[in-house]
């Protein structure tokens, strides 16, 4: 975390990058300066579309297909990459500058073992012989805290977990001992409980080899653990830059402050005795693989129940059972006190109408060829029997509810922003006039500021319409913001459930303890502090 040598490693001057969309080139990075010293970690933050990744890749002299570096200077250790030949840049990439991608599962080639891919760059650049590289990789695997470091390299990417892959990718980047590593959202795809360890492994590696790094993320709490300095980007322009401490405690710009204050929604938790949905002792399986074991969950009318847990914990499967997509093997789902038929096709239109669903990826949940009018109008016709002008009128009302005006009626999903798409999905669910809406990670794919808007909208709709929510998420901040009651799931079982206050106060069962402790906090030194206590918590889980 120190910058003892003030020698400059990378210097970008007035960097400008174009991106191709809608049949023409647009400037997406508009004259950004960036300076990085040897051994220093710079955090690059901003919302999606801010140009973080594009700028990070430009540090390697690389532009993705559909992008082009138009002007500026990229001085890396005395040479301007803008003027270098492709061959010269190839020599640097993988040797002196390495890249760690967002999704390790996608960035590892499924056809080759981890070892082949880890040593590939070093061997191809002639930095070491295959045998030396293999021995060294084993040491790196060990340093990255991977299990069985001597043999894990013989495995294929699909044979190890996501957290392990992300660590192996850091080892791969380290293999040729680069001067600079670009970390591009390396922990975004991981569960919080896995994230902590990966973060620690990456920080140790960077410190041990005195490597400089650019750490790209949208998560402020994460960047606070990793970076010496933070640069905030928005719309391809720098907003501000300062050392981490100053940035956290004393941000200058309004935009930065707004990023910092997103997690400020808080709602008073209430409970009600009137239960709209009761899941009783549900057991379910995919084929022969059991996924839910004796799950009991109750949802109060007009309230929000959050189901929280890591991937594979059974959150979404619970939703599939409630909606009838996956009939349970045992147990009952009671809706307004009456049991729902397990299979979707046995449910009446009335039963279907009362439970609606909103998905994580608004993009894929809408037909790209249908206009907003058709997308929202269809359930209006189907469930309420309205026709012609009455449908249009209702679509207009629904658009008003989600705070969009009627000019959106004839747009296609492709013409909407991520937040607007999710709003359309909310309107589509509301069109059925449901009593219960299941929200499956509805804000996970959105930027923090947009998330805040969606969450506020959902809360507002609840007050107005009295609709109940099951809110499935892995994000503790979201849970804190909107829940009345919380259910913690782990490996297909309910670990703890109760009112929000109850869940967020001691004592916890061991898993809840671990989950809550793993959520990064915006505080320098949180990572060190947490690592020691987390070890004990994991041990407590057995």
């Amino acid at each position, binding site marked *: 975390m120190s910058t003892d040598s003030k020698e400059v490693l990378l210097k970008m001057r007035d960097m400008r990058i174009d991106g191709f969309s809608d049949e023409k080139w647009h400037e997406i990075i508009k004259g950004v300066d960036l300076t990085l010293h040897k051994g220093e970690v710079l955090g690059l933050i901003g919302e999606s579309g801010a140009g973080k990744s594009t700028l990070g890749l430009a540090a390697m002299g690389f532009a993705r*297909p559909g992008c082009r570096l138009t002007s500026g200077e990229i001085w890396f250790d005395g040479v301007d990459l803008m003027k270098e030949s492709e061959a010269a840049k190839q020599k*640097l990439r993988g040797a002196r500058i390495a890249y760690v991608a967002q999704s390790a599962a996608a960035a590892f*080639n499924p*056809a080759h073992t981890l070892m082949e891919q880890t040593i590939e760059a070093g061997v191809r*650049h002639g930095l070491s012989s295959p045998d030396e590289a293999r021995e060294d990789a084993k040491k790196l695997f060990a340093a990255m805290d991977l299990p069985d470091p001597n043999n894990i390299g013989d495995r294929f990417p699909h044979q190890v977990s996501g957290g392990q892959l992300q660590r192996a990718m850091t080892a791969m980047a380290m293999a040729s001992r680069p001067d600079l590593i670009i970390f591009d959202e390396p922990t975004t795809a991981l569960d919080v409980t896995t994230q902590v360890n990966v973060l620690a492994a990456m920080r140790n590696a960077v410190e041990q080899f005195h490597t400089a790094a650019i750490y790209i993320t949208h998560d402020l709490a994460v960047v606070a653990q990793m970076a010496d300095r933070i640069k905030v980007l928005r719309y391809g322009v720098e907003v501000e830059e300062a050392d981490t401490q100053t940035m956290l405690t004393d941000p200058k710009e309004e935009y930065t402050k707004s990023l910092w204050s997103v997690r400020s929604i808080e709602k008073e938790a209430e409970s009600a005795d009137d239960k709209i949905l009761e899941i009783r002792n549900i057991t379910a399986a995919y084929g022969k693989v059991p996924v839910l074991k004796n799950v009991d969950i109750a949802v109060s009318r007009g309230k929000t129940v959050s189901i929280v847990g890591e991937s594979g914990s059974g959150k979404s499967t619970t939703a599939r059972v409630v909606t009838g997509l996956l009939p349970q093997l045992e147990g009952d789902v009671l809706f307004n006190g009456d049991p729902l038929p397990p299979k979707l096709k046995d449910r009446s239109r009335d039963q279907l109408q009362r439970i609606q669903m909103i998905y994580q990826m608004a993009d894929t949940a809408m037909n790209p060829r249908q206009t907003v009018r058709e997308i929202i109008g269809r359930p209006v016709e189907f469930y309420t029997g309205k026709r012609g002008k009455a449908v249009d009128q209702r679509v207009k009302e629904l658009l008003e509810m989600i705070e969009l005006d009627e000019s959106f009626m004839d747009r296609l999903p492709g013409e909407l922003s991520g937040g607007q798409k999710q709003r359309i999905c909310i309107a589509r669910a509301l069109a059925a006039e449901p009593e219960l809406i299941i929200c499956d990670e509805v804000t996970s794919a959105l930027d923090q500021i947009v998330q805040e808007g969606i969450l506020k909208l959902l809360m507002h709709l609840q007050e107005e319409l009295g609709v109940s929510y099951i809110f499935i998420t892995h994000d503790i901040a979201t849970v804190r913001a909107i829940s009345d009651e919380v259910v913690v799931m782990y490996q297909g079982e309910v670990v703890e459930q109760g009112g929000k206050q109850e869940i967020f106060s001691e004592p916890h069962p061991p898993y809840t303890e671990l989950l809550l402790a793993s959520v990064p906090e915006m505080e320098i030194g949180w990572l060190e502090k947490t690592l020691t206590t987390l070890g004990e918590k994991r041990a407590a889980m057995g």
Partner: protein
Amino acid sequence: MTVHPVIRTVLQRLALGVMTLFFVSIVIFSGVEMLPGDFTQAVLGQAATEETVAAFRRELGLDQPAYIRYFDWIGGVVTGDFGTSFSGRAASGIDRSRDVVDLIGPRLWNTLFLASMTAIVAVPLALFLGITAALYRNSVYDRVVNATTLATISTPEFFVAYILILFLAALNPIFPSLANVSPDTELSERIYRSALPAMTLALVIIAHMMRMTRAAIINLLASPYIEMARLKGLSSTRVILFHALPNAWAPIVNVIAFNLAYLVVGVVVVEVVFVYPGIGQLMVDAVTTRDIPVVQACALIFAATYIVLNLLADIISIVTNPRLLHPR
């Protein structure tokens, strides 16, 4: 339960292949059964009396009910006996007929020879062209290769054949325009005489395979692991050969299998143009003379070719998929 999943899948596919072949045999038999016309009448002519026709039918076994004839036939096939050809028989009772196996054997060998000769050249060439076109995509080379192969695939095969004859046999007498081979033709002579039909077939199938290879590879170039490979500073050749190609085998192999099957079952036009004594011509002749045992045997061989080649393609797709080959 300790059987490796790949072996289990392969065995399953094999069993499925045998089942398919069995169903196809029923379809073939029923299809031939439904053909209009009758061999006995075709041979004996309009003037034959009811009695002679009935006697001839009895001799050929055509008086039996269809299901008995089916089981007779399929029972023979399983033991390698495809029956006796109808041709060579006459109402006079003189029987110069031959076993179907003897009739088809040399023809099938000729067809397989031509198919192998074409495949040995065409498959590697198509892969090479496809890979290099992907490597230098959108370059002049890529466009020339694409346009040329598109032209050859869009031209009817008999036309390609006559063009080749015109330039390589008529105007410049390099190769013979007639590919008449017999069992005692020497190998080198055989290759020489089969050169033009082989070239024609190669031109027809290369385009398909080359374009699929190119598309399958380019399809993968947008994958994050390809970007990762580029960011490791690897050369384009290495990126394509080591990172893209191993993941592109499944679609490529399927197209290769499809084209190899075509080389065996779909080449009758080319055989006719070059008067090449292959199995396609034999089947067409057998259909015209209502020689049912030969038609059925040819159809079954064609079906088996498709099934075996597709089975092979499936197996290769499975084996090149690390998720299946190396389970968790």
